[in-house]
């Protein structure tokens, strides 16, 4: 018998727990030639802001041992172009599209959440709180529980859609951040975003990235991500989406054991465009071979 791969995540009905991660999958269409979008659970679009954002100068990416740094600088088309140019594609795909978004004040976050709330093709929202708060001296929302709570509460008031909050790993205590976001009304938490890192080119004696620092992703960060998912899952009640260095069904199942109800595949899609689909299939096969009836039976099933 085929195992039951479905997941109900904060009201989102997913055919399986594998989603693609924001910023690594464009607006869905870019990968449509390589992935059967209807074989994955959901996809998350590139971080969106009210106004279009230019992003950083180049170079914006560099490979590091077992990972990569990116400093795209949240380049995106802005909400108007998103509605005009990207939403029609979302409507054509029978897979939930989750829109990742950000702002520079709680008000901007809320306004955007409100705009997205009106778009029927948007199945859920993912709030990226790893952005500086321009009103409070540039402190990153996602590193201060009060700031984060404020943003989440503002978004919560602006939307009835499933609200996922994406946590930054660049914090002393991810559990405190998770708790603050859950308390402020998050339906689910996704973790982790990238670790801040840097690469230097010895020859030119310059940073490789034009932005100097960037976000580390890929297999290198998997141990940190697994640890954070496990810590948060033991402390917080809302469902979790595990992210960080997932390249195989085994990786994904490890996150499920650690307490994630679903996972997101990021950097791996660059290496194998069909990674998310293959991971979903691989998970199903594993469950079948191991006689696990429902993927949800494994959530948090780690024996410590």
């Amino acid at each position: 018998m085929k195992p039951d791969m479905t997941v109900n995540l904060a009201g989102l009905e997913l055919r399986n727990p594998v989603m693609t991660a924001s910023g690594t999958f464009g607006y869905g269409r870019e990968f449509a030639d390589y992935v059967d979008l209807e074989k994955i659970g959901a996809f998350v679009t590139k971080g969106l802001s009210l106004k279009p954002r230019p992003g950083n100068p180049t170079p914006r990416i560099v490979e590091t041992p077992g990972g990569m740094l990116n400093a795209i600088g949240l380049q995106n088309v802005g909400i108007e172009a998103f509605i005009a140019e990207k939403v029609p594609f979302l409507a054509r795909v029978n897979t939930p599209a989750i829109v990742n978004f950000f702002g520079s004040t709680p008000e901007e976050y809320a306004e955007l959440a409100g705009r997205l709330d009106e778009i029927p093709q948007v199945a859920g929202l993912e709030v990226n709180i790893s952005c500086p708060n321009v009103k409070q001296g540039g402190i990153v929302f996602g590193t201060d529980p009060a700031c984060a709570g404020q943003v989440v509460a503002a978004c919560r008031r602006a939307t009835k859609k499933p609200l996922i909050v994406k946590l930054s790993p660049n914090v002393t205590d991810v559990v405190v951040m998770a708790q603050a976001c859950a308390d402020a009304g998050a339906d689910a938490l996704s973790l982790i975003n990238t670790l801040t890192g840097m690469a230097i080119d010895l020859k030119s004696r310059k940073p490789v990235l034009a932005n100097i620092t960037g976000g580390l992703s890929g297999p290198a960060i998997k141990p940190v991500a697994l640890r954070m998912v496990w810590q948060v899952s033991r402390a917080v009640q809302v469902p979790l989406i595990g992210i960080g260095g997932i390249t195989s069904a085994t990786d994904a199942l490890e996150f499920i054991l650690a307490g994630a109800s679903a996972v997101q595949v990021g950097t791996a899609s660059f290496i194998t465009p069909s990674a998310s689909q293959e991971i979903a299939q691989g998970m199903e096969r594993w469950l079948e071979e191991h006689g696990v009836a429902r993927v949800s039976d494994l959530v948090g099933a780690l024996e410590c």
Partner: protein
Amino acid sequence: MQFTSMVLSNAEVSPGYHRMRLTAPPEFAAARAGQFVMVRVGGGIDPLLRRPFGIFDLSTHTPLHDGAVSQPCFEMLYRVVGKGTALLSTLHATDRLDVLGPLGTGFDLGTPGAEKLLVGGGVGLAPLYLLARHLVQQSPVRLFAGGRTRDDILCITEFERLGVECYVATEDGSLGECGLVTEALVSRLEQLEGGAELFACGPHPMLKAVAAIAAYHAIPCQVSLEGYMACGVGACLGCVTPGHGHTAETPDYRCVCKEGPVFPAHELGWEE
């Protein structure tokens, strides 16, 4: 298209430069000059990302044994610069390689009849060979090949065999003229009566110079760019390059992997 390709040959054609021939699926035969592939080197995390390479040539491979069906194949011309290309250079016939492609937007072949001037710096010659093969069928073609030393001047005989007239310049004078290839290009343009069309691939400073020459002579010019790439399909926004209207206030970034790698030179911003 993502496919597993078999290495047919992989030979050093000049110190530090290799030419690799690989099998491809039938659909690959439709690849256009200027498009590229992304190759996964090794099966693990080191290197992690795919490496982009131009398509040097397209052809058909007929295995030697009886009754064998012939199969499309393509070639890459690459320079060993780092980990990925070093590993690539160790592969042998029958080794497998995971390939994504053809990707991106290739060259527009321009107006039949008009003289075509191809400008290539070092390994920038790679995508120009397939282009020349297509162009010689409809127009006179000249190649301006530049490099630091004669080791950087690649596959000129192949171009000549197509009937392409070749001009060579090296910075150290070890082959052809001593100096920059753009000087030879300028002389030729000054001789020319009718319009010519430019196609260039090579280091950024060379492309910038070629773009300026084209603008000065008011002739069409296409350039093929490089950019650090992660996805190759327009999803990560890692590879962008400034468009002609780009300023810090009114940013205008183009995706090298999707909108490019070939762009009309006048559509790009050349300031930086």
